[in-house]
């Protein structure tokens, strides 16, 4: 437990912002510890907020009304690795990348790969249903989680799902994944392990016009190719990354696509040819291929360190997370540029383009309250456009306290009422992670945006 104010202060923040300092921070070592904490919190009527590594970008681990933060930092055991059945059982505090490293020697990995994977925990991934660049071909966290152990509000411990695909009954596992800590505390996770592909090829396609890059994305999808990853970065972002990481990105281009194709050697060779052809037909100035694992890692290091690099060119930035149908990318980018111009804001763009998952980066100086207000207006305009195009207000960062008031953009009062009633089944007193996911009716104008990390 941590009680001293200076210790508790550290647990005020996550990757998005902060609200309040928790009243206490607990570090359980076992499911039994978690059960005791929950029973105590229930008796004392104080909120319980689950926390992994605090890398989340929607305020999921932020304390809204005080209460106990349950940090899973000491529940980080890999309980079982079962290669013949392609499964692993882990505690929620296991770091995402550590699981992949633990099974790497035998040729397996855990698919979801958020940019924060060196720090973020699998428990956090489960809460947020995290994605990452490589989920385009293989799906997000929910497609790789088969079973959970969950402590409910009265201290009951339930097990949902398991190592096999089907258990009789409703898919509670699938419902709990992505519920952002509002239904219970997950204390154990059964995941799928995936064999590593035989061949991987990475391309960097360089463009003079953003439009040509976005059209390439649509053409690759329409061409029947599903790359393992298909990322886009615009000129503003590129230059910031290059200054920080020296990944070899061209400084004078308008946009690049980072494309990775994996699978059987024969298939990869053919797809790389096809992808390169599509890029060139859409006016790519140059298409580079990574010739070695070092070159490949360098290209990815630039992408994965993008958010950190942006800190060099702007005191603060706000990373958004919208989704649109992939074919609307060209129109959406024009719209984002227009929003930036209207409000006089610099907006960089870094997308999981293959999924239609946008991360516009709105740059500002938090010391300037007028600019901060403009950023929030611009961000909500971008979100509204995503919703209008049939998209979503979050693709992988979650709703948290960032977007709960925006939920009515895409859900009706009936939809939200149903979600609320389902939440009450698991969390009737509302003391797990209060104020998250569902609208509270209060607009959160006071959102204090920090320099973010990101996926």
């Amino acid at each position: 437990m941590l009680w001293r104010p200076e210790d508790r202060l550290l647990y005020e923040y996550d990757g998005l912002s902060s609200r309040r300092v928790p009243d206490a921070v607990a570090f359980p070592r076992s499911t039994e510890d978690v059960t005791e904490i929950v029973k105590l919190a229930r008796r004392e009527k104080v909120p319980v907020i689950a926390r992994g590594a605090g890398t989340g970008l929607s305020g999921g681990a932020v304390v809204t009304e005080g209460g106990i933060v349950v940090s899973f930092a000491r529940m980080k055991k890999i309980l079982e690795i079962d290669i013949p059945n392609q499964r692993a059982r882990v505690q929620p505090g296991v770091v995402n990348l550590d699981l992949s490293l633990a099974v790497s020697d035998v040729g397996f990995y855990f698919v979801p790969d958020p940019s924060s994977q060196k720090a973020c925990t699998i428990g956090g991934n489960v809460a947020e249903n995290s994605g990452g660049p490589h989920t385009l071909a293989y799906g997000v966290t929910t497609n790789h989680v088969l079973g959970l152990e969950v402590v409910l509000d009265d201290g009951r411990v339930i097990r949902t799902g398991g190592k096999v695909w089907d258990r009789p009954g409703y898919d509670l596992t699938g419902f709990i994944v992505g519920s952002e800590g509002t239904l219970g505390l997950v204390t154990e996770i059964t995941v799928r392990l995936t064999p590593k592909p035989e061949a991987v090829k990475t391309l960097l396609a360089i463009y003079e016009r953003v439009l040509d890059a976005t059209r390439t994305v649509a053409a690759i999808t329409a061409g029947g190719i599903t790359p393992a990853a298909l990322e886009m970065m615009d000129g503003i972002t590129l230059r910031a990354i290059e200054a920080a990481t020296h990944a070899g990105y061209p400084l004078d281009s308008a946009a690049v696509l980072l494309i990775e194709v994996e699978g059987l050697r024969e298939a990869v060779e053919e797809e790389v040819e096809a992808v390169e052809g599509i890029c060139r037909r859409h006016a790519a100035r140059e298409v580079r291929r990574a010739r070695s694992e070092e070159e490949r890692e360098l290209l990815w290091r630039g992408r994965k360190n993008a958010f950190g690099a942006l800190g060099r060119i702007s005191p603060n930035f706000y990373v958004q997370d919208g989704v649109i149908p992939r074919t609307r990318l060209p129109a959406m980018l024009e719209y984002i540029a227009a929003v930036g111009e209207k409000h006089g804001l610099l907006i960089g763009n870094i997308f999981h383009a293959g999924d239609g998952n946008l991360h516009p980066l709105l740059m500002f100086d938090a010391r300037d309250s007028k600019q901060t207000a403009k950023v929030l207006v611009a961000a909500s305009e971008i979100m509204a456009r995503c919703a209008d195009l049939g998209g979503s207000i979050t693709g992988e960062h979650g709703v948290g306290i960032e977007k709960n008031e925006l939920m009515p953009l895409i859900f009706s009062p009936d939809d939200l009422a149903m979600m609320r009633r389902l939440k009450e089944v698991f969390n009737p007193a509302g003391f797990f992670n209060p104020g998250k996911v569902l609208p509270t009716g209060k607009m959160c104008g006071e959102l204090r945006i920090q320099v973010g990390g990101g996926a």
Partner: protein
Amino acid sequence: MIAAVETIQAELAAIVGDSAMSAGPDACRPFAVDGVEPRLVVYPSSAEQVAALLRCASERDLAVVPVRNGTKLGVGNAPRRYDLALSLKSLNRIWHYEPADLTVVVEPGMKLGDFQHFLARDGLWLPLDPRGGARASLGGILAANAAGPLRGRFGGPRDMVLGMKIATGDGKIIKTGGRVVKNVAGYDMAKLLIGSWGTLGVIVEVCFKLFTRPAARRTFVFHLGGLEAARDLRRQILKSPLGPLRMALVDGNAAEIVEGAGTKFETRNSKIETRSSNFELRGSNFEFWLEAGGSQNVLARFARELEELARGASVQMDKRDDATLVWDRIADFVTLVTENSKEAIVLRVPLPLDSSEEFLRMALDETQIRAFVSQPGSGVVTLVLSGEASGGNWPTSAASSVAKLRDLAEKLGGTMAVEHCPAEWKPLIDVWGRPGNDVEIMRQVKAVWDTKGVLSPGRFVGGI
């Protein structure tokens, strides 16, 4: 409130129109579930009509079973009560088809075969080969979370749904998810509906993520002498980087059925006993089917490596350029068996990947096992039992066999559900098996969706 049939009929007719409703034994019999017939059949033609019907059902306390083609109606328990069959056959339209985005919004009454045919024009497909095959409706596939051998490679329905609209038991239309491939806004309520067997709500619209069809396909058939050989082959293939589209292991009887060479179950009234004197399953011939997909270069690689595997194991292997029909019959094995043999019991046993052969080895000691199809890519085994060895006590001995096989499956970390058995034996046989300690939550979830308990009452696990 129990109202006279006439009153109810008038209310329902006001929703769907007279021509979209029928009554009487002839109209109702095809919708019977385990011999329980509804009083009325309604054919709504829109999501709003479905919602209005359910609202009326909840007010009038009418028990409703949603149905399309009925390919899986025999699964689960008989409904505790059953007033209204809600046929989804008129909800079969496609909305928002975006081939370039690989997404489509479609209504639940569309049959999988028609849907695949529609998608094939653009070189797309939904990689599902569930029980019921082409005749299975999309709504039924979702309600059953039904998936066949393609699951090992592509996942199941739960991995392909991007969003849904659902009519709840009390007649509200609820949306979850959306039309984009990545979305974490709000609770993923679609997961609850997928595999809920019509007990939570009626899916009135679904958005699927689509896939590109493989450029070409080829099927390879290994002729194996035993389960150890099957296990070794499966392990080698899963360890290799090949990644087949699908795999199936069948015994000699199942092979005859799926290859369409007549069936041991072809006679009505299940005279299986008379044809089975020379039946010997253990140690007999097994066939291991594998379908590869991709470019010619990829298929050539498969051929090279699989030939090497066959040589190494000293087993015979054939190649088939077009085995679509056989794969369709493998997917629809349960129907092929049960439509001709009402006394057969079919068990579905999902197991950990590496345990299916071990389960089969032990299960085959149960003499009543007559045929099986196993999916080595996903660990799901489908077993057929019949009463040959049990004389007049077949139902009782079947019940004990089912219990024994269930124990065995659970010991290996799996589960078991009865996919088919004669309705009158269901009181003796536990169809779904023991629910976990999350069943209480499931009951509460059911009460949220279906406040009056009118949807498929009693059909699901734990009496839900």
